[in-house]
């Protein structure tokens, strides 16, 4: 049950990973999310979510090369897996369907 549905925050993290392409590691994900969503993304939260997504099989990760920054520690880069991509596409489709069902006047005042 838990594995099939994406939470809102999980979806955001997945989208961010996708948008960062090859540079998606925890700190960068946090920064990117802060930039785009106007809310602070705490490392502790993001780290936990990344861990959970990996457990669900939606992302996979591998360690990068060691550099002089970060105290010589390697980064862990995340990429989407096939199920991850599918989950994102599915989520988007679901929304589009809903969007299309909304008559134009409903949202007029809101904009």
């Amino acid at each position, binding site marked *: 049950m838990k594995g099939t549905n994406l939470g809102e925050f999980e979806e955001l993290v997945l989208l961010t990973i996708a948008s960062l392409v090859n540079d998606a*590691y925890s700190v960068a994900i946090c920064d990117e999310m802060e930039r785009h969503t106007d809310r602070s993304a705490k490392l*502790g939260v993001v780290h*936990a979510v990344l861990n959970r997504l990996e457990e669900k099989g939606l992302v996979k990760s591998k360690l990068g090369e060691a550099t002089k*920054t*970060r*105290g010589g520690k390697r980064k862990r880069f995340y990429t989407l897996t096939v199920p991850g991509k599918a989950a994102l596409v599915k989520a988007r489709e679901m929304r589009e369907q809903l969007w299309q069902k909304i008559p134009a006047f409903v949202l007029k005042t809101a904009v």
Partner: protein
Amino acid sequence: MSEKRNIQPPRWAERILEWYCKPELLEDLQGDLHEYFERNVESVGKRRAKLIYVIDVLKFFRIYTVRRLEFINVLINWIMLGSYIKTSGRNIVRNKLFSAINIIGLSISMAVGLLMIGTLMDTYSYDKFHANHARIYRIISQYSYLGNKDGDFNATTSLRAAKAVKETFPGVEEVAIFRGGFDGDFQAGDKTIPLNGLWSNETLFKVFSFSLLQGNADKALKEPFSVVLTQKSAKKLFGDADALGRTIILNKDREYTVTGIMEDVPQFSHLRFDLLASLSGREITEKDHAGEMAWDNIWRHWTYVLLPADANLSSFQTNLDLLSKKEDPSVKNTNIKLALQPMDEIMTGKSLSNQGGPIIGGTLLWVFGGLSFIVLLSACFNYTNLSVARSLRRAREVGVRKVIGAMKNQVIGQFVVEAILISLLSLVAAFVIFLLVKPYYLGIHTDLQELLLLELSPKLVGMFLLFAVFIGVAAGFFPALFFSRINAIQVLKNNSTVKAFRKVTLRKTLIVFQYCISIMLITGALIFYKQYKHFLAFDLGYSTENILNIRLQGNKAELLKKELSELPDVKQMSTSAMITSVGNVEGTSMKNPNNPEDSAGVRFNKVDESYIPLHEHHLLVGRNFFAKPDSAKESEVIVNQQVLKRFNIANQDPAKAVDEIVKIDGKELRIIGVMRDFQYGRANNNSGEKVVLRYSKEGDFLNVKLLSNNLPVAYEKIKAIWKKIDPVHSFDAKFYNEEIEQAFRGLSASIKLAGTLAFLAICIASLGLLGMVVFTTETRLKEISIRKVMGASEGKLIYLLGRGFFMLLGTAIGISLPLTYLFFDKILFPNIVNHAPLKLTDGILGVLGIAAIAAIMIGSQTLKVARTNPAQVLKNE
């Protein structure tokens, strides 16, 4: 730029992270935190950044990050345990001297620890057999007159306060009231047995868990003149016959009906009695006695309240204060402060006056607990010291282990296991010592014998085992840490690069510490011993030589006197109400003849006409009492100089004070003589007492002055006469000087304990020193041989080897002697009156002894090395 790179997050926080985090998550998480840390250094500064780092590390302690116990590691540790034990065993056998030093030191100190554990366990199990022990409180009271507080709190309260609490206080479940002194000779049929009991009210069985075997718990102590016997007393009085409903007669006077038989009072109860009588009986017998219910008569009743589990103690205290406020005006110039004391703290808390029986007291536990801990610590230091010193020999082994793949914590595990093994071996020896020493330990003081059992129970043995493991870990942890840090490559490449003496400062500090403790303990014990001797030989102001004090126990003095006067050994006889200078006091009040508003408490003794000459009390002016029957009205008194001084009688001129009339205990008495001051209380307190002597022919004691040629024979003769006169009571007589000695038995017990601990501490420190000397000389054997070949003399070599150790010894003496002196001079002695002056020479004997032992050890070992044939040593290379 380079400066910024040097700023690192706190190392210890990183360690915590490394410790708890799963290895697969660790590296990038560490990197992430580090990246944030760098940013924070830029934005908020170094200090805040470090703080944030630490907080983050703690915040990441979550279920998904925390490392699981890996099965394989557990398995490896189990498999390796066998190997650890095997290597440890081999090591113990190979280094016989060091193992022996460790095991002897540890087992001696652990025996002390075992005694301490047993004592603590016994002490803390007191009164726990009561189901409600945590909810029972004792009401204690403090007496103050004209604002002068009377020292400690008393464990007792007035009957009036007890009744007020019982009848008017809200939120009290039950109140049990005891009164001491239901003692005397109890007669059942033709048997007469002396017993000691308490008066009590009927609710005691609701408060306490004393179980009644026969009779009705609710009613047993309700009716006046009913008694509840313990099983033991019932058996003494009635044998195997049924006791319930029978009557017993107290002191040939009043009949009491047995309404209940209860189980014997358990050993671990601070309340002790042979039988209980109903308190309601006293309401009848003491009806006309106004003092019974007086607010300031706080000396005889113990009051216990059972409160609900959620009781509000501070509001109870407020109610007690209100009660004091209401009742204080009933007695002039007197304040009684009441307070609650949890029953669980009676045995371990601070010492109060008027306890019903002996208690151990928190101070004693802390002092001797602390001293035992120090002795234990000293033995652990030996282990640490010797293990680290031997690192040179074990380093290779550790190196090989590490190369094969031992992790740091496995090396730690190995050395801790070794230490635990040694401490378990020591436990066996310690346990034997414990069993051997137990009777002597309990015999140090009669109170200990009465209070403690030190019985072996599974719980106690379990505690001993736990204790041994704990000691093992404590002793072995530091060496283990030291060995685990050894760099395998360095050790294996070249042995000499291991810095064997790296921890030299630490080892020196430990030795100095051990010797400081030893010196302080031995000096302290010696100073105490000198005080003890000083108090025993103290000039009391009168003579106590060859005086035998016989407790009359209700017999007529005249009868005994007549019989004894036929003995040729008896020189003189007198009677007295009490024995002075052994700590007992009798008090009454005396009015100031110059100022009717003023009165003060004075001490007194009731004596007959022979008392003053027999004890060689010095009369300054006036005369002694004349003999007269007790039925005559009391009219005369002899006072001491302090009385004249306090009330300024006749301008303190003894000659003019004679024939003055003073009012003592409500009676008008004429001063017939003034005596020189003497020590009424014990020599180490109650000095400068105001004392009056009153006349009475019927005392509680017969003082018999004997001719000094054969005291033991005379004693036996008197005992035989006593048996003829009184077959019921056992002969209770003590020589005055022995009685004084007994009054200081607390001090003598402390000296024995402290002295023994000092001796042990010295032994352990000496063993440790021996180990270090042996080790040092052995490692320098080659150097010594070369020096010898080059022409160094034996004396020079001994100096070279021993210099360092003597320096340590000197430092220890330099630190500890002034500390001990200051402790006694500034802290302890100001509180002791009449103490012997402190001299620097007091400690010298102890210090010399210690120095001599150390010198023998250092000397013998260095001499041995200095005398070895250099050819033998150098040939082997």
